[in-house]
């Protein structure tokens, strides 16, 4: 592990100023992605700006049909939140399926969304519910935020402060896990609510998380698993690796989406 400068941010604006002032500086949230990456020398930030002390970046509120989760809220806090369980139980299922207990005790929603790992769970939750990503500069619709593998609309000195999820009538998240890493091989988030019917898939797309318009249209007409059983994605646009070929992932997309529709109840 190469050495780096380290600073505890005193506020969001202090963190943004430090990012701007230092070339190659990176934010540190839970460290569950960034620190393993630095340890393996896959990343070499010149400085880490630690958001860990910012209490006002932690917490969950539910008001006016919106669940707001602040960026430094840990996966374990979402999992244990009675408010989220009441408003959007699918998010509790999602948070509880991330990694393992120890990872959930450190990893945060902000870090997960900023990282946009193609196999991560929260990007599917954000896109599948039509969430709004609030940053130190602006508000972005999830549809505009996630751009490609590990790539988002975030600028180098832009910080996610919170994520707003509209409360759906029903929603479910089903993931087919890699048994070793527990990341999604394919995960499907399906919801019906103020943003219409949305189907978001993680783990599979060669460009990261994506929606399936054909399934959304079919489900708008008839919200049943049968309505989408004939809708397939093109294996040519799927990831393929030793864990699952692109053909297998394409097959799983329809299977997981159908299961998610059934789980919506």
């Amino acid at each position, binding site marked *: 592990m190469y050495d780096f*400068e*380290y600073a505890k941010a005193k506020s969001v604006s202090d963190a943004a100023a430090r990012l701007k002032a230092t070339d190659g500086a990176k934010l*540190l949230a839970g460290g569950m992605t960034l*620190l393993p990456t630095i*340890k393996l020398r896959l990343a070499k930030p010149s400085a880490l700006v630690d958001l*860990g002390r910012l209490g006002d970046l932690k917490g969950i509120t539910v008001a006016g049909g919106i669940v707001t989760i602040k960026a430094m809220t840990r996966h374990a806090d979402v999992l244990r939140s009675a408010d989220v369980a009441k408003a959007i139980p699918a998010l509790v299922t999602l948070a509880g399926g991330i990694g*393992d*207990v120890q990872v959930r005790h450190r990893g945060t929603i902000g870090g997960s969304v900023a990282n946009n790992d193609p196999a991560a769970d929260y990007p599917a939750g954000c896109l599948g519910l039509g969430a709004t990503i609030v940053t130190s500069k602006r508000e972005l619709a999830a549809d505009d935020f996630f751009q490609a593998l590990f790539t988002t609309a975030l600028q180098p000195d832009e910080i996610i402060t919170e994520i707003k999820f509209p409360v759906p009538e029903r929603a479910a998240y089903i993931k087919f896990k890699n048994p070793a890493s527990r990341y999604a091989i394919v995960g499907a988030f399906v919801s019906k609510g103020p943003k219409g019917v949305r189907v978001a898939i993680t783990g599979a797309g060669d460009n990261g998380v994506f929606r399936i318009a054909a399934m959304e249209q079919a489900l708008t007409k008839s919200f049943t698993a049968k309505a989408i059983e004939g809708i397939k994605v093109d294996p040519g646009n799927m990831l393929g690796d030793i864990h699952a070929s692109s053909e297998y992932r394409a097959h799983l997309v329809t299977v997981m989406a159908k299961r998610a529709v059934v789980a919506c109840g």
Partner: protein
Amino acid sequence: MATVTLTINGEKVTREVENRRLLVQLLREDLRMTGTHVGCDTTQCGCCTVLFNGDAVKSCTVLAQQADGADVVTIEGIGTAEKLHPVQQAFHEKHGLQCGFCTPGMVMNSVDLLQKNPSPSEQDVRHWLEGNLCRCTGYHNIVEAVLHAADTMKAKA
């Protein structure tokens, strides 16, 4: 370099550390508390599990500086050879270990489980220990040990 002060097993400790110092290195190399093990470099094995402000975390993936001001409990802090913690006693009685390399992490994560859920089901135990890998036991006796510890701790309470 920076100075960090944290509470480890109830005692205040202050040390100079490099920015890149990991909590597990502070424990093992600076403080010579070698009960906490390192079994991987990918944050997957759980051998390095300690309690961090009351929650089980992987100390190989926490910077010493992130632990500044934290309350940390390690395997050295829960029992002694003469007076084992009930979870340690249960691992002993139920043969919950073979080589013992994974055991400190298994024990610490189980201590966290039982403080949050004193009556776990077998499924709860298996789910909670997902982030702790064991190459020897096949997990069966580890799960037995944790369920047994839950019973003995409730009987004593």
